[in-house]
């Protein structure tokens, strides 16, 4: 299973093999992380809820 680093707590985050770009992962430190795939590398950034988000 791929790993990435939590940008908030610095600990490892287990990432599913079939992770999707834009997928939301909840980390044990309490932060929700958004998956960014750039040049084949998996990066994580804190999920920022958009003003216009909704159903």
């Amino acid at each position: 299973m791929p790993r990435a680093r939590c940008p908030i707590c610095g600990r490892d985050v287990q990432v599913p093999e079939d992770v999707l770009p834009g997928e939301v992962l909840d980390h044990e430190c309490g932060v929700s992380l958004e998956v960014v795939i750039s040049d084949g590398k998996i990066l994580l950034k804190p999920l920022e809820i958009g003003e216009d988000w909704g159903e």
Partner: protein
Amino acid sequence: MVSIALIYDIARWEERALLEASRKLSVNVNIIHVKSKAFPVDGLREDADIGLQRSLSHTIAVSSTVLFEASGLRVVNSSKAISLAQDKLWTLTLLSRAGIPTPKTVVAFSEQSAVEAARILGYPVVVKPVNGSWGKLVSLVEDDETLRVILEHKAFINNPQFKIHLIQEYVRKPGRDIRVFVVGDEVPVAIYRVSSHWITNTARGGVAMPAPIDEGLRDLALKASEVLGVEVSGIDVFEDPERGYLVNEVNAVPDFRNTVAVTGYDFPAKIVEYLVREARK
């Protein structure tokens, strides 16, 4: 084999469930994460027979749907339907014109007219923006003074949409509202959203429970969908003790995780099956 373009910005449980449903139904999915790349305005070609719009951002949902429609891809829901459903003023005016019962609503373009509107409707009133979701910036207001404070706060939000105020009667719901799901010409599942708070959205803590669908509810949901042109939607319905069902909102990119959890109904499969049928037409 039919190929579906899953168009999205943020992947949540719902998008995963749609992928899983597609896999079980042997439907190919072209995953289009709209934030991962840039798209040409002309000459865009995606390898898909039909698209499903699942973007959380209202702005991205409309813009990316316009883009893919321009390339000739049929997208569910259409850009027009999403635009109409996202805007509560458009939704309510179109529903009212079609004779669909809705909560009494007045629109005000200034703070002063908002106060006058509230007095006309009679307190308590609900104040909400024309574009919003998950119960955000929706306020229950008991008097002029509170309303003026809320409007003053909104005046400092740097977004012109928040300068248009929908003032709505407070419908005395029985501690719940109904979320009715429509797919094409079917109304497969519905839930109650139960809360001791007057805002019953599950995003705000409302508890989902299975709800029966009677003929009146089914007809109302189908008619509301038809008026706005939405094909896959979640329609929010109030139960007024005297007037019966009132359509409050139509959601063009509905959340359904809680619905699947409490009903066991395979709503993702229902959506995928609908898309396959439409793609084959």
